[in-house]
């Protein structure tokens, strides 16, 4: 035990010596809250904002009430555009062409054709065009309903069936997109925060000839590996915790109620998430140690380990595309945790069996990696990077 303690202290000293490298590793934790904040703000703006739209209207005087309704909904003729955004809207040039016979056709109950001309492939115009169409359709529908009423017909007969959506999601569900992002980021944090420490204490030490020295000491290779693992995964857990704490702080700056959503990350949830990701942190570090010991040089270790980082990013995304998830996905590392996080954010009660299952499988795999690694470290092939 004393040996292990000494080893652990040595690893921590090494890890914390290079403060700048450590800071860089922790930036991952900073990145998530910032990204979530920025992305949600932009998304909310796009989802709720009905900024003024300026239309190049021809024949404005033929349909004054239609223009009035458009104005009520923040859609104005180009003549009203303020100077500072005049160029933008002149360039976008959404044209609404109201025919001269508008009044006549309206009176006679014929179909009036209004032309809406714009570059429909321009993405920035999608929302304005949709809003313009909605407003004109609403205006037309309300006239249509009144036409029926004044002919003694109940306009509701035009709508034989109405679908009433009944969503069974928990009312307390968190905003989907934030949950998705956060789930991804904490997994990434688990994999990335300990990364530099893992590579440095394996491939790095080998290149600095520290590893050889270490292996000469009368300690078991298992203890050496365990000390390295504990150090790297501690850093990884710090990264995860930081991500969660900072995110819960940054999300409070986003007014999600604007889009009818909410996001609550309370202490209990944070604790649960840390507990959930604890095995993953160990697993990630073990995997990284394993791979970098396999590599022949520090450089090679860096590039191979970077590939492993794709794992947490790919698995949750891939899971989104699988509609019928096979049971075993609940048990695998990364996918199991990812699915449990989904449930947690949706407010679904936690499936403790799956929780224990995935934790055991993850810990088991970690243990297997550690044992294999400590066996391999006995071979000089690994120590000297011979193949």
């Amino acid at each position: 035990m004393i040996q292990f303690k000494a080893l652990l202290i040595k690893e921590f000293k090494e890890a914390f010596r290079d403060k700048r490298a450590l800071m860089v590793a922790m930036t991952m934790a900073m990145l998530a809250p910032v990204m979530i904040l920025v992305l949600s703000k932009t998304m909310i703006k796009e989802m709720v904002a009905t900024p003024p739209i300026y239309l190049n209207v021809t024949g404005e005087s033929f349909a004054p009430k239609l223009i009035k309704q458009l104005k009520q909904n923040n859609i104005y003729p180009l003549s009203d555009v303020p100077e500072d955004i005049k160029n933008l809207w002149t360039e976008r040039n959404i044209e609404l062409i109201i025919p001269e016979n508008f009044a006549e056709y309206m009176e006679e109950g014929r179909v009036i054709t209004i032309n809406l001309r714009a570059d429909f492939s321009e993405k920035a115009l999608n929302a304005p065009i949709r809003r313009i169409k909605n407003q004109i359709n609403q205006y037309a529908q309300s006239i249509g309903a009144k036409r029926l009423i004044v002919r003694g017909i109940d306009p509701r007969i035009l709508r034989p069936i109405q679908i009433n959506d009944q969503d069974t999601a928990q009312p307390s569900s968190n905003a989907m997109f934030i949950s998705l992002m956060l789930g991804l980021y904490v997994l990434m944090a688990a994999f990335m925060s300990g990364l530099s420490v893992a590579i440095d204490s394996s491939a790095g030490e080998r290149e600095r000839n520290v590893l050889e020295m270490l292996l000469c000491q009368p300690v078991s290779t298992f203890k050496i590996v365990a000390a390295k693992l504990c150090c790297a995964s501690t850093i990884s857990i710090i990264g995860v915790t930081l991500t969660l704490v900072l995110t819960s702080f940054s999300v409070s700056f986003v007014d999600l109620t604007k889009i009818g959503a909410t996001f609550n990350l309370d202490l209990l949830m944070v604790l649960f998430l840390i507990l959930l990701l604890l095995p993953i942190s160990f697993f990630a570090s073990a995997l990284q140690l394993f791979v970098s010991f396999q590599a022949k040089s520090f450089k090679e270790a860096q590039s191979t380990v970077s590939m492993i980082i794709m794992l947490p990013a790919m698995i949750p995304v891939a899971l989104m595309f699988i509609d019928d998830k096979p049971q075993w996905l609940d048990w695998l590392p990364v996918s199991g945790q990812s699915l449990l996080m989904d449930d947690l954010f949706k407010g679904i009660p936690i499936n403790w069996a799956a929780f224990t299952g995935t934790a055991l499988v993850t810990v088991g795999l970690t243990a297997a990696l550690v044992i294999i690694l400590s066996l391999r470290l006995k071979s000089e092939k690994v120590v000297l990077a011979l193949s």
Partner: protein
Amino acid sequence: MKRTRLALFSFLLSITANAVLANEENSAVENCHLDGIRSQVQCGSLNVPENYNKPEGKNISINYAVLPAIDSSKNNAPLMFLAGGPGQAAVELAAHIRRSFAEIRKTRDIILIDQRGTGLSQPMLCDEATKGNLYSMIPEEFSEQETLDCITKLKETNELSQYNSENAIRDFDAVREALGYKQVNLYGGSYGTRAALVYMRLFPEAIKSVVLDSVGPIEVPIGLFGLSSERSFNLLLEHCANEESCNKAYPNLKEEFETVVNRLSNQVISLSVNHPRLGTKISFKLSKGKFISTLFKQLYSTQTRTIVPLIIHQAFLENYQPLLGLIATGEDAMSMYVGLTFNIVCNEDMPRVTDDMRVKDSKNSFDGGSSHAIFKTACDVWPKYQVDDAFYKPVVANIPTLILSGDLDPVTPPSNGEKSASTLPNSHHIISKNSAHIVASSACGVAMINDFLQHLDPKKVDQTCLLDIPAESFMTSLNGSI
């Protein structure tokens, strides 16, 4: 107040930070789906004594729903919505309220309670008989017998004297307590304002603030709408005359209205028409009372007012189809529990109406007092309960109160709001020029309420958005107008 829209909005709001989160242990509260709302809300029911003086006696169940705040972390005191009528069931209005009060629901739970006698709280429905013959029924033929049948039916299940305003408030406060809220904000619309005023008198300490929208003060009896509807109708005529297209299409609107009324005074018109929904041949009877009451209902909202000049003009030209279509649209309008309407109005309001008041109210150019008939007929036979004189005293309570009135309102004119404003020391009265009954039916009305709930100073409410509510405009031809 017979019209349903009248009662659309009545809420109790309370903003206190000390509001306790909805009591989780109250096992009666469970997730449920309400019509027209996609996400789940919370529903529950509470047993209360039918007669509060006999707590061991019969219990009745009070149905309620909570529309949870989107962001519950703010811990704002909830808003309790007091429905109108009397006779509207708040829970049935859930989808409507959820939509229009979206801004408020962002950080506040909204509590909806079916007043005893409505919805799923011992409902007092009366109108099964009349539902089928919407088109052949005329108000002039409304008979005592219908009322008597209804009374007999209701008496089997309900002790009528207990279905009064004060007991309703006792129920509401019991629900508040059961839900674990220390204080609530009240929103009352139409009769809901009356309920809110009674609440302020009975349980002032449970109320954080009050919004009275389209006020029916306790001291002004419900049921005399002659003068107020005349005022509302005259404003409509004036606005039509001022709008170029409307004036051009209907230059003699007032004369045409009088001509139709005279024509119908002499004889009831009976027509063979197609049923607006079924398409089958039916007989459509049109009398003066039916003509006026149909128009009267359209005066409640700026949307329906648009069609009034056209209806009058077409009726003048002896085309009654528009009127028929209009009656059809009222068919499924949110239901009124008319038994409760009569029970409350006949006992709490009609006894206060003197012959003098009736005569005065009849002297108007719109309905000529014909709107009194139904309440008079029903109330003559409706079982009485004793209302204490103290009930009619104006409510004086030092609770922040925002009072809203729509200038075009045919039933609760701004003068009503003035009355309440003068007795409530911490209140402010805002009149919306281009609103009719229920100011909160416009986005601006809700925005003002939301603003008020944030700071609770009725005088500081930002009313600039009132200028954005468009003036009413009218449909000038059978195919619409440009």
